[in-house]
């Protein structure tokens, strides 16, 4: 894994894993996987495997953190020691603490935090396997878990990244492309309200490149959003169809 590939994009314009520049990795979503949590979701985004669990709103501990006018949203992004090639120390790293904050801030605009003062919502994100773009996949999964828990939301949130690899703007970078490429632009979107809640850039891009990267990422978001909705529906539609069969019998 550690040997550098010579070319990130081959002569046919295909990427290392055979994707076209504007193609997403396969995404699989599942809702309600942790019965102890109030809401939960699981995402497989390419080789990324991430679990998200939501608790709350519940009483705030320690009590002095409670706010009189709104809910406190707490978010913990954590990578399992076995999630990457080299063992990752289980203690929260600088990067994990930063990502926890970034993810929290991109989810908060969707939650009606002013509805439930003096309470707390806990979001736990556990990365089981990482392969680039975990922050985006985490946001997608956490938003699903929030919706599953019955917390009122303005909209679902989807996230997707685009970036520049060998002078080409590509969608949904995987780990190798992220490390050897020129730039990475993660974007989180509230699709119905058409509002961006996260926009970062790592690397350097010209204004035009940046614009096309953002637009490409937004396209990716919309594709994942369809899957996200489907995952939420499946949880309940299954019960419905079972009954239909019963009636037909």
């Amino acid at each position, binding site marked *: 894994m550690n040997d550098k590939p010579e070319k990130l994009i081959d002569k046919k314009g295909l990427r290392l894993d055979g994707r076209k520049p504007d193609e997403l990795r396969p995404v699989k979503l599942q809702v309600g996987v942790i019965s102890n949590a109030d809401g939960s979701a699981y995402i497989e985004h390419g080789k990324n495997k991430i679990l998200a669990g939501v608790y709350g709103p519940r009483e705030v501990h320690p009590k002095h953190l409670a706010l009189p006018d709104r809910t406190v949203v707490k978010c913990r992004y954590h990578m399992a020691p076995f999630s990457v090639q080299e063992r990752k120390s289980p203690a929260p790293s600088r990067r994990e603490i930063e990502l926890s904050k970034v993810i929290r801030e991109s989810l908060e605009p969707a939650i009606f935090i002013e509805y439930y003062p003096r309470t707390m919502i806990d979001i736990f994100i556990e990365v089981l396997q990482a392969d680039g773009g975990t922050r985006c996949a985490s946001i997608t999964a956490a938003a699903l878990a929030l919706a599953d828990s019955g917390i009122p939301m303005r909209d679902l949130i989807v996230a997707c990244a685009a970036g520049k690899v060998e002078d080409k703007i590509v969608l949904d970078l995987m780990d190798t492309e992220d490390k050897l490429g020129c730039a990475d632009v993660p974007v989180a979107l509230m699709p*119905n309200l058409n509002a961006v809640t996260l926009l970062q850039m790592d690397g350097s891009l010209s204004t035009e490149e940046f614009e096309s990267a953002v637009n490409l990422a937004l396209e990716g978001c919309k594709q994942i959003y369809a899957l996200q909705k489907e995952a*939420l529906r499946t949880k309940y539609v299954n019960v419905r169809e079972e009954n239909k069969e019963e009636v037909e019998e």
Partner: protein
Amino acid sequence: MPIFLEKRQLVTPGDLIAEGDYIAGENTYMEKNKIYASRVGIVEYETKKMDVVALKSFYIPRMEDIVIGTITEVGFSGWTVDINSPYPALLRASDVLSRSFRPQKDDLPQVLDVGDLVVAKIVSYDRTHDPQLTVAEPGLGKITRGQILKVTPTKIPRVIGRKGSMISTIKQETGCNIILGVNGVVLITGKTLEDEQLAMMAILKIEAESHTSGLTDRITKMLKEAKIGKEEKKE
């Protein structure tokens, strides 16, 4: 001024329900004259008011609600009660004793101890204060026997049914007395454990299949079959 969705359609947060001169009902919100869903649920409307019946939620206290709670803490002059909500409820000693509380003489754990269950009514609640309970009314107070069941609070209306049709069917067929706490906790007291278990099964079935049609008929069928099965056993 269109409505974008049909009745009884499943929605997810952010789905556009209607635009124009409508009223945002339960589990919806309005922005720029458009009404969106804020929870996963089923769309219901009559004329102007758009509602989403949530498939999962938690209990937020409201005045006059009858709830079932568990004592979690015995304090100096009252109890803290878990009412299955983000906010803990308070029950005052003077309310339970129905006279003024005398710290030297009254032993609170003897009246109600941690783990005891109570049927209570919420007398006050707002954004800045935790809910306060009362048991000083007929039908309220400590629970001494029966079965406890928890369901998502939004499913309670479904368990009651249209004009109480569902709950009265269950009561009739099982011969159990059922108290529905608005907070999603249900108390079932019957003559035998079997009766109670049958009622529990029926309520759990309602919870799992609340968003499907023809549920009342299926529940009635299920209860009648169980009854026949029981009589055959006796013979």
